[in-house]
C-alpha cells in the first residue's frame, strides 16, 4: 500500500497523539490505526524514534538507547565470533586426563609437607628483624673517646622480659622526638638488630 506524503504526515501526527494519549474518540478509526501501526514497519521505527526523542527531551535518555539495535548486533557478533579461541573439539577426553597420584603426595609425615608450604622464604636481609632471640638486659653505652657530655641513655629492659621486635616506630601519643633522640634510637635499634642477627646466625650455622 503506497501512501502519499500527506497520508504519511497524517499517520505520524496520529502516532504522536497516541503517544501523548490524545486519541480521537472515534473508536473505529482508532482500532484501524492501531492495526496499521502493528503492521507498518515504518511506523514501528517512527514509534521508536519518538520515544527516544521524548526521553532525551525529558533528560531520561540512557546512552545504550542510542545504539539502536543492540540485541541484533550482539546476536550477530556471537554467531560470527569464536569467543574461546579453541575449537570445541580440542577438549581432552575425560579418560585421557591424568589424575594426581595421591600416594606420591603423601609424605611420611604430612605435617612436614604442610609446614614446608607455610615456610616464609625470607632473604637474609630481613630475617633478623623477624625473630626475637636474645634478651638484651641492662644495655648501656660506655662513653668512648668522645668529649660529648650528653651520654646516650638507653632504656633498660627488665631481666626475663624480651625486647620488642626490632625497628619499631615510635608509639602514637608520644611527643615528637628530637633529631638527636631519633639518631640515638636508630643507633640503639641497629645494635639490637645486629645482636639479634648474631644470635640467629649462631643458631643457623651450628656445626
Amino acid at each position, binding site marked *: 500500500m503506497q501512501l502519499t506524503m500527506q497520508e504519511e504526515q497524517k499517520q505520524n501526527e496520529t502516532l504522536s497523539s497516541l503517544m501523548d494519549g490524545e486519541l480521537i474518540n472515534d473508536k473505529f478509526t482508532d482500532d484501524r490505526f492501531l492495526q496499521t501501526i502493528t503492521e507498518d514497519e515504518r511506523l514501528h521505527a517512527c514509534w521508536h524514534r519518538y520515544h527516544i526523542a521524548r526521553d532525551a527531551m525529558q533528560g531520561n535518555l540512557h546512552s545504550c538507547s542510542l545504539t539502536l539495535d543492540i540485541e541484533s548486533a550482539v546476536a550477530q557478533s556471537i554467531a560470527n565470533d569464536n569467543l574461546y579461541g579453541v575449537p570445541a573439539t580440542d577438549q581432552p577426553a575425560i579418560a585421557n586426563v591424568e589424575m594426581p597420584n595421591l600416594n606420591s603426595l603423601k609424605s611420611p609425615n604430612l605435617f612436614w609437607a604442610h609446614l614446608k608450604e607455610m615456610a616464609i622464604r625470607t632473604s637474609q636481609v630481613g630475617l633478623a628483624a623477624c625473630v626475637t632471640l636474645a634478651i638484651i638486659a641492662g*644495655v*648501656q653505652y660506655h662513653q668512648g673517646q668522645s668529649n660529648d657530655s650528653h651520654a646516650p641513655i638507653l632504656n633498660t629492659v627488665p631481666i626475663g622480659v624480651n625486647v620488642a621486635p626490632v625497628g619499631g616506630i615510635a608509639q602514637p601519643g608520644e611527643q615528637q622526638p628530637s633529631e638527636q633522640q631519633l639518631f640515638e634510637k636508630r643507633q640503639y635499634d641497629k645494635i639490637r638488630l*645486629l645482636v639479634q642477627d648474631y644470635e640467629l646466625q649462631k643458631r643457623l*650455622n651450628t656445626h
Partner: protein
Amino acid sequence: MNLFVIINNRLSHKGADKNRLIIGQRLINLFFPPYFTNHNRLNHITTYQPNQNKVAKTLPRKQGKTLLTLFFPLLSLLFSSVCLATDTDDAINLLNKMNNAVQTQNYQINFITQDKNQYVTTFEYSHIGATTPESLIHRNSNVKNNDAAAHLLYLEGPAKEIILHHNITSYFQPDSASFSITSPRIVEAFPDVIYNDFKQLANTYDFILLGKTRTANRSVQLIRIIAKDKDRYNYVVWIDDETYLPLRIDLIDLNNELLQQMKVVEFNQNFDKKKLLNYIDNRTYPILLAIEKKNNNLDEWQLTWLPTGFKEIAAYNISFYNSDIATKLFSDGVFSFTVNISDEQTTPTNQLIQQGGRTIFSTNLNKKNIIIIGNLPLTTIERIAQNITEKSPS
C-alpha cells in the same frame, strides 16, 4: 702431675720455650724424685741450670760429663712431653666422649645459667638421642643425619619453650612471635664449645685435666679448655664420670673472673621418653623461616688479622632503615663473632657494651661504621676492628 701441666701451660703463654722446658723438668723432678731419677741426675740438672751458653762453652773441655749433662735433660724432656701428651690425649678423649654423649644420650636435666652481674635463669632440658633406631645406625656410621629430639623449657616468667625436631628448632614465645628455623640443636642449652671434635681444636687450644670433684650429686672430672694465645676466654667443663655429660660449664675471662656459668642441679635418665616424644610429635609448629642466600658487599673489605683457628662461616646483608649492613660471621668452633659494616657513622666514635661473655663494640673507620659482636675479650675485638682494611680497587 696435674699441677705440673697447669704450670707448664701457664708458662707456655709467656712464650719462652727454653725456660719452660727447664722449669718443667725441675717440676717433674720435684714431683717424681725417687722413682724416676737418681741422685746424680738431679745434680746434673742443678749444675746444668744456670745457662745454656755456659754448657756450650764447657763442651770441648769436659766432653764426657757434658754429654751426660745433655743426655739426662733430654731424657727427662722426652719423659715430660710423653706425660703431657698422655694427659692431653686423656683430656681430648674425655671431651670427645662428652660431645658424643650430649648428642646421643637420653637425659633430662634441670639447670641454671647466669651471666656476670645478672640474675639466674632456670631451665628444664630433655633430650632424646635418637627418635628412631635407624638414626642410631646413621650416627654410628658418622653420617651427620641427626634425628635427635629435644625440649627446653624456661621455668620462670613466660613459659617459653624451644623444641628440636627433625633438625628444625622451633621457638614458642608467649611474649613475642613464635617461629622455626633450620638448626640441629638448641643453642640455649649447652654452649658451642661442647659440640666439637676436640682433636681438631688441639692446634689452637690446650686441654688440661684438673682432677675430680662432685656436682649435682655426681662424681665429675674437670677439664680446662684454654686457648694457646691470649685472644680468647677459657672454659672449665665438669664432665660426669659415668655418662660423660657436661654438668657444669664456666666461662672465665683472662683475669680468672667468672663471666658465665651453666650448672646442672638435677640429672635424670629415667624420665618419660614416650610422653615427651608424643608431646613433640603432636605440637603444631610455628612458621619456618627459610633463607635465600644472597651475596654481600663486604668483599670490598677484608680482615687482615683473625685469631688463629677462626674461619668465615657466613656472609650476607641485613636491611636496616632502607640501607644494607654488610655482615660476616666468623667462628673457631668455640667462640664466634660477626663483623657488620654500614654507612651511618655513630657518635661517640667508640661504643662498648659487655654482657656476660658477649662484647659489642662499635667504631668508625674510613667514613664507615663497624660493629663487632662476639664472645671474645674486648682487646681481641678491638684488634680485629683495627685490622679491617678497604680493598684497593683492582
